[in-house]
Structures are given as structure tokens and as C-alpha cells.
């Protein structure tokens, strides 16, 4: 049972990571910096609860704000370029963050223990959940409450004017600019929101794994982050959730019985999925078909 609860935790956190990339992808930008924001959130939240003895929620809030601020600061120089250049710039940022934490040591003495991040060894003993008597089920509920809140927020954003603006920039920058949208402001805001969400995800990740180290936040995690929304489709937030379940639940855990072959299939199935469904598993057409199935006659024109 604990195994499945653990899996549900992982899916939840990775959904948050995917949603953070979803925001940025809506504006047509491919950002591989999400793992960097995730790392910032993880380290900040961990240091606040372990070193400063803060409760979890304010620690997560501060972690999210710090990540958002970092994303905003990175957004300005990085979003002056686009396409391949942006991919490279964000990869470089993500790697720089990772290497920063690889060299980052800040420890305090607590009894016989040394607490805090310690360079290559990572940050051990983030024991907020066990110390405060949270059961695994509590943690699962907490994670999914956060996921639900974030998804509801993004859903609302998607269906408001903001969502239309984001998608307009993503579809055609020139057209968006010519109707008076400040595209730099839109992109940087999307990046900031993405950083904020990644910060929450990272903070939660740090607490349920209890041990974080730089190697967890590499390019691979960054590609996972963009893989969820791209594989799931950008038509709405549920695509990201579906892809997180598909990748973490099916490709990684569900195929475990295949042993070594699982990793081979992993890459192959992603290639196959992109060939068969280039606009994502849950694209606009499927969404419309589903809506027609569950609510016949209620479909708005142009939805």
C-alpha cells in the first residue's frame, strides 16, 4: 500500500512540475529551466523548515516566491531570445543552478547532527513530515490538495482573458504584438508563474524525499518537465496530469516487470506517441469529443 501511496506522491509532484512548464509552453516558449526553479524551491523550503524551524506552509510559500522571483529575473535576459537560443539559455540556467547547489554548503550544528546542504553530498535530514507526525496518507492528501488548487487556478486562468492572451502570444507573436499585447511582459509573467509553481513542487519534493542532492535536478528532470505538457497536449491542464500519470504510473512503474527493457521502451514509446499524436495525447479534438460524449448539446460553438 505504501508503495502506491508513494507513487501517488511522485505523480502529484511531477504534475506540479509539468504544470509549471505548461504555463511557459502556452506562450510558445520551450523552457528547460524548470528543473532549476524546482531545485531552488526544494533547497529554500528545506532550509526554512530544517534550519529556521519554520512550519511547512509558510516555508512553501516563501520557496514559491523565491523561485518565482528567480524565474522573473531569468526571464528578462532569457526571453530576449527564442527558439533554440532559449532552449540553450534555459538549459544553461538550469545547469548553473544545479552546479551552484553542487558547490553550496551551509550547515549548522544541532546536537550530534550537522544539518543543512552539504555540497555534493546533498541536503539530508529534511524530516518535517515524520517529526510532526504526518502519515503517508496525510502527505498524499496534502500534495493532491495543492495540485488541485494549482490546476484549478490554471484552469481559471486558461478560461479568462489571461489565457487567451497567453495563447495568442504562443500562436503568433507578431499578430499578438500588433493587437497591442506587450509580449515581453506576457512571457516574463508566464515564466514567473511557472517558476512559482515549480517552487511549490520543489518544496514538497524536498519534504517527502527527505534527502535532496544536485544530481536530481539535472537536464533529465528538465526534459521530464516539458515532456508532461507536450505529451499530454496543451489544450488544457488535464493533459499534463494525464501525461504525468502515463509516464510515472505506466511507463516507469507499470512496466517495471519488464526489467531492463523498460528503459528501452521508455524512449521508444515517447517517440511513438509523438509520431502518432503530434499535438499531444489529449488534444483539442479529443477534448471536444469527450465533451460531446458527456454533455451532448451543451457544447458551445468555437469551444
Amino acid at each position: 500500500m505504501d508503495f502506491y501511496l508513494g507513487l501517488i506522491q511522485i505523480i502529484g509532484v511531477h504534475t506540479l512540475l509539468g504544470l509549471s512548464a505548461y504555463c511557459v509552453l502556452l506562450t510558445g516558449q520551450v523552457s528547460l529551466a524548470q528543473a532549476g526553479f524546482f531545485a531552488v524551491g526544494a533547497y529554500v523550503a528545506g532550509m526554512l523548515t530544517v534550519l529556521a524551524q519554520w512550519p511547512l506552509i509558510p516555508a512553501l510559500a516563501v520557496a514559491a516566491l523565491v523561485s518565482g522571483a528567480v524565474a522573473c529575473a531569468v526571464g528578462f535576459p532569457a526571453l530576449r531570445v527564442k527558439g533554440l537560443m532559449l532552449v540553450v539559455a534555459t538549459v544553461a540556467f538550469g545547469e548553473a543552478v544545479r552546479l551552484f547547489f553542487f558547490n553550496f554548503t551551509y550547515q549548522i550544528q544541532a546536537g550530534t547532527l550537522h544539518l543543512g546542504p552539504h555540497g555534493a553530498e546533498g541536503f539530508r535530514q529534511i524530516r518535517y513530515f515524520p517529526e510532526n507526525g504526518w502519515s503517508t496518507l496525510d502527505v498524499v492528501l496534502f500534495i493532491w490538495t495543492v495540485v488541485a488548487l494549482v490546476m484549478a487556478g490554471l484552469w481559471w486562468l486558461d478560461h479568462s482573458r489571461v489565457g487567451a492572451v497567453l495563447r495568442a502570444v504562443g500562436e503568433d507573436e507578431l499578430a499578438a504584438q500588433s493587437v497591442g499585447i506587450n509580449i515581453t511582459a506576457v512571457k516574463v509573467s508566464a515564466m514567473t508563474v511557472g517558476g512559482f509553481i515549480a517552487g511549490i513542487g520543489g518544496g514538497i519534493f524536498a519534504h517527502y524525499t527527505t534527502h535532496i542532492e544536485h544530481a536530481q535536478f539535472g537536464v533529465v528532470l528538465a526534459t521530464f518537465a516539458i515532456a508532461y505538457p507536450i505529451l499530454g497536449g496543451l489544450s488544457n491542464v488535464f493533459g499534463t496530469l494525464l501525461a504525468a500519470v502515463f509516464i510515472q504510473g505506466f511507463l516507469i512503474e507499470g512496466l517495471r516487470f519488464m526489467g531492463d527493457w523498460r528503459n528501452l521502451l521508455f524512449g521508444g514509446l515517447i517517440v511513438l506517441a509523438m509520431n502518432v499524436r503530434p499535438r499531444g495525447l489529449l488534444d483539442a479534438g479529443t477534448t471536444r469529443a469527450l465533451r460531446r460524449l458527456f454533455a451532448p448539446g451543451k457544447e458551445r460553438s468555437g469551444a
Partner: protein
Amino acid sequence: MDLLDLIDAVQSVADGVLFGATYALLGIGFTLIFGVMHKINLSYAAASVGAAYASLLVMSVVQAPAVLVFVAAAVAGGVIGGLVYLVGFKFIPLANPLATLMSTVGLLLLIDEIIVHTTAGVPLNYPALFSDVIIEVGPFGLRGDLMFVFALGCACMTLLLLLLYRTRLGLATRAVSQQPTASLLCGISTTRVNVLTFVITGVVGGIAGAMTGAAIGMLSPLLSLPLTVKGLIVTVIGGLGSIPGAIIAGLIVGGLENAFQFFRGVSERDLYIMLLLFAFLVFRPGGIFAKSSGRD
């Protein structure tokens, strides 16, 4: 700093510049594919490492002199390049850049895993040429294997430039990269040019992979991600689409990498390369050889 340290520093920078030929070749590959298809092929460096592995496989079956390992890697690289086009690009609509980006990520993971699966994740020794030769220049020594790698890299770049600027295929390639529609109207088959670009960059990548193996002395699947990142960095510093830029940037990155390693240690080395890249993106987004109005 006394004289001995200075000599050591210059020595390590020189080694780095020689090794930088590898980065230059990878950078050229990324630049060419992006130039022709306006797509990023993230699986490129992994395919290059894969080609080097394939050449080892060939060498284990056929008894041949060590020089042929580079030929085998080049051929394998070309084949893998064609396959990458077929699997990752052919059937995916070009209007959807995210889908091809994701499919190349999938291919990157797939190639890495094929390598891990067949070698059980153990690094393999790679034959180096002239590794016993050391040319003494004053207080410095130039390693024979690195010199060979550098010379091979230069030869590849020369051939590639000749191909691009002196043949009809090169003309077609450049035409497609500038104006796909217009070149289609002129009777150039864009699909054919795309496939050939993938095969040619695959050959170049295979040689780069073999060069990496020869310079380091071994191959490991762990090489592909750092090489991807370095190749992309070289592409950007050199300026997207600029082959001379990629060459210079490759050598600079190789040299600086060793300089940072010498002065700041291996764990901080890449951090400064990333910062250098960021500086370039902010102040010279068009790369080294960009005109001053290069920013879009």
C-alpha cells in the same frame, strides 16, 4: 603565480583547445540541422556517442587497424543520422516544433538506453592513435592523440566547408536553409536535402564521437548529456547558422573549460561555462560573428 604554474596553465589550455575540435564538430552539426530544418535535434550528441559505440562493435567483429575505427564511426553516424530523421522527423508535421523536440528527447533517451543495455552500463576502452607520441615544444608537450584528434577535426571541417560552398548539394542545402519555399519552386527536393543533411551531420557527429572516445580513452553513456549541452552552447556562442562561428566557439569553449578547471577545480568548471554562455546571450545573442544589429 610562479613560472611553473604558468606553464601548467598554458599546457592545460592548449590541451583544451585541441579537444575543443570535438565541440566544434558537434556545434556544426546542431547548427546545420537547425539551419536547414529550423528544428532542434536534441538526440544529436547521443547519436554521435552511439556511432562511436557502433564502431567499437564493428571493430570487435572485424580485425582491422585502429585507424578504421574512425571510418566505422563515420559510417555508423551517417546511418544513425538517417534513422533519426526517419523516426523523429519524417512523420511529424513540421508546423509543430514541440512535437519534434519531444521526439528527439525520446530518441536521446532511447539511444542512451540502447547503449546501457548492450554494454551493461560499463564504460568501454576506446582505441587512441599516437597516444605514445608527445611533441616537445620548449617546456610544453603536445599529446599525440589530442593532436591527431585536432587534425582530424580540422580535416572534417575543411571537407564540410568545401561540401557546403563548392558542390551543388551544398548550394541546395544553403538555399533550403535560406528560403525553403523558393528553393522548392526552383526544383530542389527539400525532403532529399533534409535527409542528406541528417546523414552528413550524422557522419560528422560519428567522427566527433570517435574523437571524444579517442581523446578521453574510453566511452560511456554518461558522455551524451554533457556533450549535448556543450554542443548547444557552442552553437549559441558561435552564432546560430554560422559554421566559422561554431568552429571558433568550440575551440574557445574547449580552452576555457580547461582554464576554469585549472584555476577553480573540476566541480566549478561548468558553472563558469554556463555563465559565459549567459553573458553571450545577453550581450551578443547573435554569437561571435554577428553584425552589431544581429538581435531580432
